[in-house]
């Protein structure tokens, strides 16, 4: 009986109905309700993860913030390959990411993106590799999944939501939708079977202060540091049609 239990504890054996066990360590996402549903209790290393946001800018980076900050704080490197916009240093720093461990790699073609991604995975030096490939074929995904398996890296691919119908060799695939006040995460694929329900996440609100009680009427970055008078702020608000 003990022998059987030992055998079943082997990482490459998976039994239906249980979440996949992972031999490689995971990185906590910082969201307990998400971690509970991820095999290994966090973002998996040594496996490809696909993130399919409904559209850009709904918080797909935000949900990685905790993991990236934790990895960079441990001295692991984070590589961003072919990002669609400029990764904005002041915001990244505010999110707790150590910028001395972050590199941004720009590429000129989808081929270069894949090449750079594979190099970053195979070099074994990165804690996380993020990429935004324009298009990617199944065979190429398979290649990246194999490269990821030999690494101790979070291998993240951000793909457009229309790819949802395509098959994937990735170990984990998430779909992100917006909902009032946060994100709705659906796990489309994971080791250990699909999850029927969606997970509601509330990423940290970017907005801390509202119009209603601004500290000085208005936040100013005026070089002469003139205090903006409250009356002017009121008229400004009227101009903007905000009440």
């Amino acid at each position, binding site marked *: 009986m003990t022998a059987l239990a030992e055998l079943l504890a082997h990482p490459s054996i998976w039994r239906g109905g249980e979440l996949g066990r992972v031999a490689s360590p995971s990185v906590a996402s910082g969201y307990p309700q998400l971690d509970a549903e991820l095999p290994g209790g966090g973002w998996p290393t040594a496996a490809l993860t696909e993130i399919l946001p*409904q*559209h*850009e*800018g*709904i*918080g*797909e*980076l*935000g949900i990685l913030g905790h993991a990236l900050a934790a990895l960079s704080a441990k001295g692991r*490197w984070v590589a961003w390959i072919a*990002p*669609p*916009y*400029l*990764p*904005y*240093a*002041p*915001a*990244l*720093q*505010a*999110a707790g990411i150590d*910028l*001395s*461990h*972050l*590199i*941004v*790699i*720009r*590429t*000129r073609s989808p081929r*270069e993106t894949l090449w*750079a991604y594979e*190099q*970053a995975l195979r*070099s*074994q*030096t*990165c804690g996380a590799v993020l990429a935004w490939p324009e298009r990617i074929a199944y065979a190429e995904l398979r290649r990246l999944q194999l490269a990821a398996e030999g690494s101790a890296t979070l291998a993240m691919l951000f793909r457009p939501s229309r790819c949802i119908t395509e098959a994937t060799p990735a170990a984990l695939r998430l779909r992100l939708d*917006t909902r*009032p006040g946060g994100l709705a995460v659906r796990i489309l694929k994971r080791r250990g079977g699909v999850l029927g329900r969606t997970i509601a996440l509330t990423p940290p609100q*970017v*907005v*801390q*202060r*509202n*119009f209603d009680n601004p500290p000085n009427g*208005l*936040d*100013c*970055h*005026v*070089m002469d540091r003139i205090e*903006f008078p409250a009356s002017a702020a009121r008229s*400004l608000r009227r101009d*903007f*049609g*905000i009440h």
Partner: protein
Amino acid sequence: MNFPRLPLEAFAETSASTEAHAVADGARVLVCNPRAATRGVRAGISIAAASALVPDLVYRQRDAAAEHAALEQLATWALQFTPGVSLQAPSGLLLEIEGSLKLFGGIKTILGLIRRGAADMGYTLAVGVAPTVAAAWLLARAGSEKIVSCKRMIEAEVAPLNVRALDCDAKTLETLAAVGVKTVGAAMQLPRDGAARRFGPQFFEQIDRILGTRPEARRFFTPAEKFSAKLELGTAVEHAEALVFSAQRLLVQLAGFLGARCGSVQHFKLLLTHEDQAPTVLEIGLATPTRDPGRFVAVVREQLAALKLVAPVLQLALEADDILVLVEENKTLFAEMADRSADWAKLIERLRARLGNEAVQGVTPRAEHRPEHAWQRAAPGARPTPSVRPAPRPRPLWLLREPRQLKQVAEKPYSENGPLALVAGPERIESGWWDGGDVKRDYFVAQTADRSTVWVYRERRRPGGWYLHGIFG
């Protein structure tokens, strides 16, 4: 160290070639590659006979200057093992390695390194090890690969060697053969005064030097201050990737040169010479100074892979002017961490070699109010300036390269799928009048109809309007 095929292997492409090659001295074959040898070509037979045996034999006349240059480059490389390297023209190097044994961890290790280096450069090598220079050279020439560790053993070890391995002219060898002397041992037994009269005094001087009863003074080889090496390719090479093997020879030499002077390089130049065009110059840059030939080769391979040749290449040249004192590769108590930082530098180099230096960058904040100037590119791994204060209000993770103008309906901003709801703001940013990049903007956090959080601003200068500048992501 004897390089028996130096006249042939001085031409880089013959080492890697699968065809039959030979080098002739006059009308006779001097040396040939194994491919030709298996088909019956031998040193000493006439070129006509060799061509009859192997109709597709590629042969050329020996080039003494190229051989000497190759030998000097080998000497430069060998300096990493000992400062005492001397040339034994035309095809040998003598290394004084007794003092280096402890550093390298024994004769076996050092011989392994020497053999591997020679193989990487594409040279056939025979090594002899003995307490006297002449005996070592004799062993190397005879190809016996023996290691003789004390003087008393020399006589017994060299005695069975073929007498042809001695450094004598052809007439002496002929006479020795005629009197029935076939081995070095037999030559040593000859009566001294008679043999000296017949062969000249230098004959026994050589024997005495071999046995160590007569001292031998040698001039050590001194390398140049800068590294500069050339390599004739012999044939015109049309594909850049085919140059990798030849370039490797130069890179291994560079590593040896640096090893000898405890140096390292961060930049060097590879020049590809064409027939009647200006040479193509490849500037090779490394993430950190190094003398690791593996890193050199990896970077050069990527650069060559990305290169389109304008014309066939006849010659390779490698120039390294800026020799840095090597900060020894980090050795830490935790080997794993050290490996990681070295691997990291290698990754950056690989990426940069293929994508260009500009494409691989870090980012860092800058003390500046204007959002588009509040960050800058930095060298990968550079620490951000600690003096930059964080922005007082949330900043988006994504910044657009250029602000994008938004539609405006009744003074309110609209995105493609509906009106924007302003959630927070305004944050007034007014700065930059002194450098012409004057901005006067009121920034707002807004939410689009499909619930993306974005960063928009209202232009306060005429003609005004709303712009999208960032996405919170």
